[in-house]
């Protein structure tokens, strides 16, 4: 069919709008990438720019040569993400599998217990009290790993509905008849069949751990050696803000500013902070999008 002229114009305008949106989405990221490769003096003189006068790889050389806290924080972030995602998947999958069992006595209560957490929560203050007073997670690695991120009721319900619709009960029952115990059925039959949803939830949880700064911000008050890359970035921007706001009061404002890394180094750190996400993005995108669609449709 021949496309009419009106349709052509429509498509062109549409294309322009979408191009603009896509540019808007990536431009800030490109700007910090370029800034991280800009000579620091140029950056201070001309400001952040897309076409800097002078390029430099000083920031990256500084970060990787001086053996400073950045590499360490990076290590913590990786460790946290890997351990956190693995634990989170183990806990989420097992609970989701059990509450997907139709004939389990007390199933209704268990589903409700998971579901209620989506509707009502005590908020920050009581949970801070529980974690600091009873579990003493303050200034420990547990403080990064445990609060709020380890399991999320929404993911449990998402996985449960996958088990109900995509893992046929007949297969599980057949395994039982063949003498497979409940544990074996779970590990050898149910888990392999649920691989797609496990991958999706793993991505959600991995991104949540990599991006989290809140747990470190709340629970790491002294142990800055446990800072993840997000916490380190956060601390740095706060120090800058504090010094510039109190510049007149602080006699040693200059000394303070000198101890903060150069602008280009800060930008390089931010780039390193998003880099893993951008690198794995093409590989996880399909699964991630599927997960959003699933979650969106089921609330």
């Amino acid at each position, binding site marked *: 069919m021949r496309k*009419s002229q*009106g349709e052509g114009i*429509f498509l062109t305008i*549409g*294309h322009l*709008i*979408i191009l603009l*949106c*896509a540019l808007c989405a*990536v431009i*800030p990221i490109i*700007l*910090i990438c370029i800034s991280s490769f800009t000579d620091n003096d140029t950056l*201070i003189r001309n*400001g*952040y720019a897309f076409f800097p006068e002078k390029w430099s790889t000083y920031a990256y050389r500084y970060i990787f040569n001086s053996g400073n806290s950045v590499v360490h924080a990076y290590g913590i972030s990786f460790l946290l993400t890997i351990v956190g995602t693995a634990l989170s998947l183990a*806990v989420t999958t097992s*609970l*989701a*599998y*059990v509450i997907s069992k139709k004939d*389990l006595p007390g199933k209704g209560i268990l589903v409700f*217990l998971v*579901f209620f*957490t989506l509707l*009502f929560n005590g*908020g*920050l*203050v*009581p*949970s*801070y*009290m*529980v974690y600091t*007073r009873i579990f003493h997670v303050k200034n420990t690695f547990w403080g990064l790993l445990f*609060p709020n991120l*380890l*399991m999320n*009721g929404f993911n449990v319900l998402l996985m449960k509905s996958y088990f109900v619709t995509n893992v046929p009960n007949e297969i599980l029952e057949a395994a039982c008849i063949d003498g497979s115990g*409940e*544990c074996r059925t*779970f590990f050898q039959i149910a888990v392999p069949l649920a691989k797609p949803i496990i991958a999706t939830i793993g991505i959600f949880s991995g991104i949540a751990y990599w991006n989290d700064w809140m747990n470190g911000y*709340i629970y790491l008050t002294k142990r800055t050696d446990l800072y993840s890359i997000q916490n380190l*970035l*956060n601390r740095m*921007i*706060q120090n800058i*803000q504090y010094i510039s706001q109190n510049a007149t009061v602080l006699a040693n404002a200059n000394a303070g500013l000198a101890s903060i890394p150069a*602008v280009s180094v800060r930008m390089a750190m*931010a780039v390193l*902070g*998003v880099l893993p996400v*951008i690198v794995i993005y093409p590989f996880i*995108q399909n699964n*991630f999008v599927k997960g*959003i*669609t699933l979650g*969106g449709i*089921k*609330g």
Partner: protein
Amino acid sequence: MRFRKYLPLYIIALPGLAYLFINNYMPLPGIVLAFKKYNAVRGIFGSAWAGFSNFKYLFSTQDAFIITRNTILYNCAFIVIGTVCSLTIAIILSELNIGIKKFYQSAILLPYLISSVIVSYLVFSFLSTENGFLNNTILKALNVQPVSWYTEKKYWPFILIFVNTWKNSGYTCIIYLATIIGFDRAYYEAAEIDGASKWQQITKITLPMLRPTIIMLILLAVGRIFYSDFGLFYQVPQNSGALYSVTNTIDTYVYRGLLELGDITMSAAAGVYQSVVGFILVFSANMIIRKIDRESALF
């Protein structure tokens, strides 16, 4: 006998249930803190009762009004502008061919995966008073005086709405796009044969068929209208005191009360206020969704 058969299943579910108990249920009794006169030595349960006086005090301050107003108004703006943007993008994307569609979709979803700390760096690279891209390049080119962005209140509602739309449109857009792709192409073919233009197809077929999804997503967002994205309101304005009156939401107020000002009871009272009103809203939103379409309801 029956119980013995299921025992392994309960054991499999145990880690998940234990986590729910610790993370979500143990903090609940701590809610009474909002009704107490907190004494650190005696602990939450040993402190004397204060009845509703914490709440009375909270609502007698300007703060209660400001944080409620900010939380609700920002959310309303996010819902309206976010819906319009993601709908527009989804509809245009659905008209493009597969290869290019995937490319644009990846770009637009990317900001959703970036942590709020890094978003605050991105925003800072544009808004920094000394080196920011806006002050140094754009405003200079337009011959406008540089603006001290982090102390000028009047710009922030726009900045926050923009950043939120930038970060979250990709996500909602995917849900709309998945719905549009699921539509029966026969409607469009028939419309084309009858000579309907693209614009007519969108307004007469796509939008009416999307209506249930739009209503559902809006209702879900309305249910969450008492909650705000802590990272957006705390990190992006860099906790700048000059901006509090336009950036303080219930979540940032609770956080500051607990960890910056040490005003735990006030913070707890605000937290309970949020939990209770939030619960009522989520619950009512769900009831309405249930009336419209049982399948989409959470419960």
